[in-house]
């Protein structure tokens, strides 16, 4: 069972290894790096390093977590289904001795891994910007890793939903359009204290910017709140995807 799953994952890796997806991943971290280099931390001259880091991460994550991360989630999900739709791969895969649930998880894991790479690159960008800003001493690794990790976690429900849409829809573009349409409202939703905690597409941003007892915390919610929304939507979307995929006629 486990070895079957690992073999499926190895097969997925091969299919992606020679695809243009790798050019896409560094884009958002690079843009964040530019923002990180340009942001002005002078007005926080006397403040703690921790405060300055919070400001830096908030600035850098603004676009990354609010827009790019959710959109990338959709692109990755569409990508792991793209080659199957294009070349009749579903019927070949499913006529092999593979469990549908296992295959679905292998695809999901692949999306998760791609997102993790994007987050690690973002982390690298933050650290690079911090050194440039003279914050090299005492990098708050705990806080940065929590931010990056919880941002990743908050993308998983979106990945589960997008995978469902991408598996069901043979078009590559249609699921992406849906995803962008659901992501763009983030700019409004995030300003609403009432809706933001429940809107799955807003959670990556909330997750990445919840620094606990932050003074900047206009956006910052306790991480626990974020996790409840994230877990709930994840379970619903993943279960729907698994049920659908197990019944899909190929």
């Amino acid at each position, binding site marked *: 069972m486990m070895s079957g799953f690992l*073999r499926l994952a190895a097969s997925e890796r091969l299919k992606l290894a020679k695809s243009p997806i790798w050019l896409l991943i560094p884009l958002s971290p690079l843009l964040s790096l530019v923002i990180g280099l340009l942001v002005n931390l002078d007005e926080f001259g006397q403040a703690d390093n921790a405060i300055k880091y919070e400001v830096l991460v908030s600035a850098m994550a603004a676009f990354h977590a609010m827009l790019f991360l959710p959109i990338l989630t959709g692109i990755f999900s569409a990508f792991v289904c793209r080659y199957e739709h294009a070349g009749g791969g579903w019927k070949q895969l499913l006529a092999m*001795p593979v469990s549908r649930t296992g295959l679905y998880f292998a695809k999901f894991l692949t999306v998760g891994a791609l997102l993790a790479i994007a987050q690690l690159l973002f982390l690298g960008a933050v650290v690079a910007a911090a050194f440039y800003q003279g914050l090299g001493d005492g990098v708050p690794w705990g806080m940065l890793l929590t931010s990056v990790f919880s941002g990743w976690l908050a993308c998983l429900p979106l990945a589960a939903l997008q995978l469902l849409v991408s598996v069901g829809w043979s078009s590559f573009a249609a699921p992406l359009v849906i995803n962008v349409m659901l992501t763009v409202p983030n700019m409004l939703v995030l300003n609403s204290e009432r809706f933001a905690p429940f809107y799955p597409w807003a959670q990556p941003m909330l997750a990445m910017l919840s620094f606990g007892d932050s003074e900047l915390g206009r956006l910052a919610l306790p991480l626990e709140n974020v996790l409840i929304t994230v877990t709930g939507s994840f379970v619903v979307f993943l279960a729907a995807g698994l049920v659908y995929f197990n019944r899909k006629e190929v």
Partner: protein
Amino acid sequence: MNEWVIETRALSKRYKGRYAVSGLNLKIAKGDIYGFLGPNGAGKTTTIRMLLGLIKPSSGSVHIFGKELQKERLSILRRVGSLVEYPSYYGHLSAVDNLEAIRRILDVPVGKIAEVLDIVGLAKEARRPVKGFSLGMKQRLGIASALLGSPELLVLDEPTNGLDPSGILEIRELIKDMPRQHGITVLISSHLLSEVELTAGTVGIIRQGELVFQDTIESLHRQAQGQIRLVVSEPEQATVALMQHGFRAELKESAVWLNGGQGDDAVAGAVKRLVEREHSVYRVEERRKSLEELFLQIVGEGLRA
């Protein structure tokens, strides 16, 4: 336990109230090559998709290697290689990487890739991205993929689709060898009887979702057996005379036709009677219905087997 490699029981698939496949009882013996024939839209692909568990039957069941597909799908599919409808491929990968993507799932030795590429004659093109392949080359890659797991049962849906005549011949030879060399059972679908006539041991003919013929190719040949046509003087009287002597004679196009299993003795006897009655016998000919004609007739009107 039974010895059928594939056995379906009243297998049916309904789409929006219309039966695409209805009450199918396929029986395919071990080591046989089974030609699954039928015109466009007859339900061949739908049946094959059910055999592979790609779609669920509306009713009925599929047994492969004596095990029920519903219950033991994975262990059955481990021993089956297939090609459904048109070949599947990853266009951005080379032929080798395409096979590698499958090999990783099936967990067979790396050496198998070169072996199957060689079998289908793609070894030289193996490193090119498959999106630049011709249809025939993709078809060969599809067959290579089906062979990769060293299957005991090969299910091929129109495998010669898009191949040139020499390619068709090659694949035919390849398929012919499967049972002999490797003990593999083959199910191969086609529109054309001529395509499987030389390879298949058994033929199943499906028409509008129903199996209208299932028997050995010899039995089909027997059914295609000919009539004897006699051109004689005064054919009306000749026909009556032959009927009086117990021949199944018939007058058609001002000639006498002898129907049914006409051995040499019967023909000689009939000629003798006619000569005795002073008919002139101008011609004695055998008229054979070709297998293809018989096939078209079966497909056209549905002959119960």
